[in-house]
């Protein structure tokens, strides 16, 4: 990224935060409802220095990581199975559509009943979101393999297993990667939603607690902590993607035809 673009981004952030700060100082914005950037920053510093933020952040990250790992493995497995077996895909198609159309948030109370207040009810909620994003992308990736590539590799003597290893997995990988950014974001969002609806730990719990006492500063501070985490994780995914997909032309269009799914 060019330096001037980065400078412009920083300037834009400064203008937004500055006018927010100025608004609350001059009384245009009510501090009770909107808090204030300096207060939020002070709260974050207080959380960090007292160490009270870390257990919550660690819980949220652990839940998101578990949801992501389980969701991706299930999604990739199911995507491969259905991508390779036409009748299975045809059989399950309506059920998958119904399941994907379901707003996940309504599942949260059920998961709370089934898996309790601990981390697993949040992980389950995250899995239901991550699974579908990864599943649809893997499925497309396996289905969309260029038949010429398949024929070429078969003519060169590939067995079914070699075909999967040399053609189908790399081809699906590009699709899976294009969904990683979305699915990691979704994993974090959905576990936070789960925490928000019922838990005793986590950033979502932190936000819910603050909201319960009309502590807008606490709510914003929790959001800021989440945003920082998402940025860091996103940068990590970018690096991994550049490494694993270095065979791709740089200027290539990002083909992300993933069926988006929400909370």
């Amino acid at each position, binding site marked *: 990224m060019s330096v001037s673009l980065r400078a412009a981004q920083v300037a834009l952030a400064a203008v937004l935060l500055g006018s927010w700060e100025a608004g609350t100082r001059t009384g245009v914005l009510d501090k009770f409802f909107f808090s204030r950037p300096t207060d939020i920053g002070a709260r974050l510093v207080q959380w960090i220095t007292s160490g009270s933020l870390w257990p919550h952040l660690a819980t949220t990250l652990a839940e998101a990581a578990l949801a992501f790992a389980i969701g991706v493995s299930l999604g990739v497995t199911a995507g491969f199975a259905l991508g390779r077996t036409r009748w299975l895909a045809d059989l399950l198609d309506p059920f998958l559509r119904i399941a994907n159309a379901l707003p996940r948030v309504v599942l949260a109370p059920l998961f709370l009943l089934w898996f309790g207040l601990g981390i697993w009810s949040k992980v389950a909620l995250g899995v239901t979101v991550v699974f579908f994003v990864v599943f649809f992308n893997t499925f497309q990736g396996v289905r969309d393999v260029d038949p010429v590539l398949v*024929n070429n590799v078969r003519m060169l003597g590939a067995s079914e297993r070699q075909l999967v290893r040399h053609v189908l997995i790399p081809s699906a990988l590009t699709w899976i990667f294009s969904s990683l950014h979305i699915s990691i974001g979704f994993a974090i969002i959905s576990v936070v939603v789960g925490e928000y609806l019922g838990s005793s730990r986590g950033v979502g719990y932190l936000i819910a607690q603050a909201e319960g006492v009309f502590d807008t500063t606490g709510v914003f501070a929790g959001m800021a902590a989440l945003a920082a985490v998402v940025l860091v994780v996103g940068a990590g995914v970018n690096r991994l993607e550049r490494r694993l997909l270095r065979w791709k032309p740089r200027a290539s269009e990002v083909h992300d035809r993933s069926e988006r799914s929400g909370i």
Partner: protein
Amino acid sequence: MRDITLDVAAGSFLSIVGPSGCGKSTVLNLIAGLASPSSGRIAVSGEPLQGLNRHASYMFQQDALLPWKSVAANIGLGLELAGTDPREVRSRTAEWVERTGLRGFAGKFPHQLSGGMRKRVAMAQSWIVDPGIVLMDEPFSALDVHTRLRMGGEILNLWADSGKTVVFVTHDLEEAIALSGEVVVLSAGPASRIVGRYAVDLPRPRNLIDIKTEPRFHELYAAIWRDLRGEVLKSYER
């Protein structure tokens, strides 16, 4: 296609020409075993073909290189799939990289190469496995005229004294005559058949740059074009 009987002598270089949509590629797919005939039979070295033709390698019209593998990995793929010792894969790949003029590009990915270079990689990929039969489906149709000429010459160099049988599909009659020992003309589809077979008695080794100015080349061209012309016109009408 209907009533096609085509015997290809071992070690020969045969071209198939015909109007678009006449089933030229289908003939290759049948020989390769990628498609099976609705009736009739395919025999390779006298034995009926079942499944894929393990004696043949296939150079496709489209880009068929694996975009996620380097040039070297693409070239050595056939050997790797056959379970060849990795050291031998490396040394034979290096040899083919040299042979196809790709020195310095072994570590590049296909998208970093020009169209002509990608075709060289595809050529090395299909020849390295040392097949008895090489099938080529308009391999150079996407290239400019000069690169085509050069690639044609490289194919002839590879083929000369190799003892391999080449079946080459093209829509370019000049290319077919210049390269092959025999040209087969297919009629316009559907239900296409063989219109004629012509032995090309031009001496070898051939110089592709000058061959088109030789009188015998023109005679052959005129003779074959008489048949082909009618089929091309028919294919326009459909």
